[in-house]
């Protein structure tokens, strides 16, 4: 077994060797390096063929029409294009947007920007299990609501939202639904024929493709219009200009092809490992699972170890790559905003660790992590005055702390 062990697959995944090999053949002089927009020679035609083949592969995974796939630089750009593009295009119809407090920052910060431009945004509270209460969502919809943005699988706690039901609701009210599917594509089934999603953000590097490429699904029937955010040569039917990165796109296509073919098998194996990890930890004292266990993506386990601070535990697990909160916010000292939105006390939010398991995780690695976590949590609790107090039966909430 090689150390350190990678258990941060929700932050990013390694590129599958099959994907990397294919990408390499679109870069060098002996490969198909042409500009897909070059219409006057073979180099351009070959690159264009490759891009269109990849578009089909991405569309196939989500059962969509390839014409509905727009290439972007990643899910963050897709979120920006979807939310700003739709909100601005339909602003004459209304200026109200609904989203949830546990969305990714790429959605939340984009909504904040729209608020500065005069839009109004409602941020829903999820239930304590991380799922959205449909009645709550319905109550938040107004006549001037043009867009609802809800993620499919949460990046921190892995819970799967009921997108089918949300889509029925938004479609019946003629409101657009944007779904950030960066964490779910290739892991949870997505069918654009049956799910009433209008816009959907996709990422390559969460599913064994390269970083720096993603896509936005834009529905054609009923047609969804967007205001472009990047202007230039009119690529991607004017929705996103810029020379297409052939090798990246080919990598995303291949990653999505593999995901489509191997999803069922991968999921079953990963779920087995995730359950093994949880079974190895859940009998410890004062251990809490964050987010619903059933409505959850197979590879995610987010656990709070009470009376142990998360950063020190990560330090103790130095041979294991895990994260506390999301990678985008792990440089800050704030506890996870996602766990706070679930109503977790700050103490438990401070004590959370996210383990994410993927295609290359082994049983041996899981067993190593279980043993290490158990040993280090015990060690840190021996160091923790809060653990002492808990053992003495002191209710920590009754203590008057000097907040600093």
């Amino acid at each position, binding site marked *: 077994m090689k150390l350190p062990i990678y258990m941060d697959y929700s932050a990013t995944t390694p590129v599958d060797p099959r994907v990397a090999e294919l990408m390499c053949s679109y870069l060098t002089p002996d490969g198909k390096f042409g500009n897909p927009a070059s219409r006057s020679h073979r180099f351009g035609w070959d690159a264009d063929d490759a891009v269109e083949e990849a578009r089909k592969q991405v569309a196939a995974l989500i059962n969509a029409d390839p014409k509905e796939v727009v290439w972007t630089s990643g899910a963050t750009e897709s979120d920006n294009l979807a939310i700003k593009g739709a909100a601005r295009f339909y602003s004459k119809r209304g200026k109200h947007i609904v989203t949830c407090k546990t969305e990714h920052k790429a959605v939340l910060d984009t909504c904040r920007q729209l608020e500065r431009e005069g839009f109004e945004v409602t941020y829903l509270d999820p239930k304590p299990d991380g799922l959205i209460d449909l009645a709550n969502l319905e109550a938040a919809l107004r006549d001037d609501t043009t867009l609802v943005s809800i993620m499919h699988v949460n990046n921190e706690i892995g819970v799967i939202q009921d997108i089918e039901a949300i889509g029925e609701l938004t479609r019946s009210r003629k409101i657009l639904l944007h779904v950030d599917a960066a964490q779910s594509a290739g892991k949870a089934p997505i069918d654009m024929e049956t799910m009433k999603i209008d816009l959907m953000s996709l990422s390559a590097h969460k599913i064994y493709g390269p970083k720096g490429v993603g896509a936005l699904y834009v529905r054609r029937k009923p047609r969804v219009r967007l205001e472009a955010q990047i202007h230039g040569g009119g690529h991607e039917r004017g929705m996103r200009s810029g020379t297409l990165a052939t090798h990246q796109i080919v990598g995303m296509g291949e990653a999505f092809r593999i995901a489509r073919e191997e999803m069922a098998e991968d999921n079953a194996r990963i779920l087995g490992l995730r359950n093994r990890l949880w079974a190895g930890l859940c009998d410890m004292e004062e251990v809490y699972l964050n987010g619903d266990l059933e409505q959850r993506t197979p590879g995610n386990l987010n656990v709070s170890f009470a009376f142990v601070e998360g950063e020190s535990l990560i330090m103790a697990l130095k041979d294991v790559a895990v994260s506390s909160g999301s990678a985008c916010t792990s440089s800050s000292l704030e506890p996870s905003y996602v766990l706070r939105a679930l109503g977790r006390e700050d103490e438990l939010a401070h004590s959370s660790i996210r383990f994410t398991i993927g295609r290359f995780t082994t049983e041996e690695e899981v067993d190593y992590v279980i043993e290490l976590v158990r040993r280090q949590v015990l060690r840190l609790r021996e160091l923790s*005055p809060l653990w002492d107090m808990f053992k003495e039966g002191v209710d920590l909430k009754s203590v008057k702390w000097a907040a600093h």
Partner: protein
Amino acid sequence: MAYSDKVLDHYENPRNVGVLDKESKNVGTGMVGAPACGDVMRLQIQVNENGIIEDAKFKTYGCGSAIASSSLLTEWVKGKTLEQAQQIKNTDIAEELALPPVKVHCSVLAEDAIRAAVEDFASKQNK
């Protein structure tokens, strides 16, 4: 974020972890911080008849820098008079452990802890 070797050393081999009898007249206990903020330090000092700190113990809930700051503090206060111990500055701790700016608050907490422990000891002597 990379930790300094000194932080790692104190974190992996913390000095003077433990508990002194908080009811004892010659023990002062300082508990500072809050769970909601992500760090709580408990520092205890045992003072002899000559006013010298002859033993110190700590327990800390917090990040590696908070644990290292309190571990270092226990080493420093041993053998000092109460007055000398109170002169330990957070900047000394931050410098010794090469704490990055985002972790300076850990050393501030350690300074608060020794002051609180000395105050607790002093209040017991007046009873």
